């Protein structure tokens, strides 16, 4: 699915990715695209379809004569706040390896993979939103709950999700009360192996409360995935090395 496809004109193609359904059709110099989420759907395919596309329901994009359509995975378009279902504590000088499963975003590019040729950028699953920071300043992010203690060693992956290996090290002399962690998904690369999707490694070093943590993204695929191929670039590759704090300790003061 994640490759270049040659599309025949005036034929509807359907992409099913979990609950996400996308119908696409090329006619003359236009692309018609319709996407929605269907709770009853749970497939994983891209093929011709007998379904009809109603013009009024579609988004229309003008394009050139090329019949090439690139379908690529992408990471969420906002940072993701990861919260363990139950708070856990990381002792000083210890680390934990997490495997965070992020819902895949689907991108369609016509002709070539260039920003100006992007005709679809949609989520395969709706993530709830959250606010990171104080109510008078901060940033909007997606919210994701994970099971504490998920580890990479089992190497499992979930369809329609991108697995992100995150190592959290507590380099301080105090116990790290892990409440939530901000994952900058716009700086991660996506790799594919056996139709499973992974990102590069993320390593967060906690140095103590009040001190900016170190946040590093590895520049290559995870070590455990030798045969993985790079399939998508980061959304925002220029901002390497996040300067913002990744850990957020201060609870909102607006409990009343």
């Amino acid at each position, binding site marked *: 699915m994640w490759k270049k496809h040659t599309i025949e004109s005036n034929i509807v193609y359907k992409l099913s990715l979990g609950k996400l359904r996308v119908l696409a059709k090329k006619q003359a110099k236009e692309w018609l695209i319709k996407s929605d989420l269907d709770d009853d759907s749970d497939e994983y395919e891209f093929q011709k379809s007998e379904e009809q596309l109603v013009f009024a329901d579609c988004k229309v994009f003008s394009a050139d004569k090329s019949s090439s359509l690139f379908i690529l995975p992408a990471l969420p378009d906002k940072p993701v706040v990861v919260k363990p279902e139950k708070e856990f504590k990381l002792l000083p000088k210890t680390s934990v390896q997490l495997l965070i499963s992020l819902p895949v975003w689907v991108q369609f590019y016509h002709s070539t993979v260039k920003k100006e040729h992007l005709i679809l950028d949609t989520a395969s699953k709706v993530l*709830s*939103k959250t606010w990171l920071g104080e*109510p008078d*300043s901060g940033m909007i992010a997606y919210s994701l709950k994970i099971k504490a203690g998920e580890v990479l060693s089992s190497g499992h992956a979930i369809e329609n999700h991108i697995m992100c290996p995150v190592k959290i090290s507590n380099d301080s002399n105090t116990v790290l009360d892990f409440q939530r962690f901000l994952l900058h998904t716009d700086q991660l690369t996506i790799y594919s192996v056996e139709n499973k999707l992974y990102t590069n490694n993320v390593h967060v070093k906690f140095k103590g409360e009040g001190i900016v943590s170190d946040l590093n993204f590895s520049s290559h695929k995870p070590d455990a995935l030798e045969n993985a191929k790079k399939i998508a670039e980061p959304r925002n590759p220029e901002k390497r090395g996040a300067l913002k704090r990744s850990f957020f300790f201060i609870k909102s003061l*607006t409990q009343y």
Partner: protein
Amino acid sequence: MFSNFEINQLLLDKIKDIAITIFVSYSIIQITVLLIRKVFFKHLSKQSKMLITKAIIYTGVIVAIFIIIDILELKGVFKTMLGAAGVLGIVLGIASQTSIGNVISGLFLISEKPFELGDLIRVGDKLGTVYSIDLLSIKLRTLDNLLIRIPNQTIISTEVTNITKFPIRRMDIVIGVAYKENLKHVTEVLKNIAANNPDVLDEPEPLILTKDFNASSIDFTFGIWFEKDNYRQVRNSIFQAITETFAEEGIEIPFPHLSVYTGEVTKPFPVKTSKED
């Protein structure tokens, strides 16, 4: 003494000089504004851009006026007039007290910045977006597209609520449920309603508070946080979700009702019927 021809010639020269001054001043002001916009305006707010543009224009106009006064050789006349205008000056000062007050209030507003262009504000019972901030007044564009002019002095001396100052807001909804309802169940249902709405923020956490024992219902305050631009969407979707979910869960939102007792709670209410012959 000048002849008629020479007077006409002098007059024509002065008119020509004034015309050139006006043209050159106008051009310089426009070019300056254009250059400032291109070079400095990229990272400034709408309000700052407007203030800088107006400052350049007013300065340019005042300089042009002084040049024209100089061309017309009216300096001496003005000095004489000013000297003799003591009483007139006092009268003018008293008459323009309100205007001067508005100008000074405007300067305080600029320095304090309680709002900017485009902010949605409430002044008294007036609600609108800030359309312009001028020397004597601010102008609001109401939600039904009317223009309201509010003097700066009124703004300074009145409570102003800036609704869109911060990136997120909380919407508080008061919901009354019947006295027979299980309050824990109602709280859980409200939590799920908030969690299932993609535009309601997970954090700050929604506020669910048992507010009051009212005459006909137990009231809850249901406060949900959202991005300020999504107000209408969130309001409509949450009200719909509350109505539908309460109906599914069998939670009653009671109408106001009154129970009448004749004296003892346990005795039935006496009703007498009579038959007309």
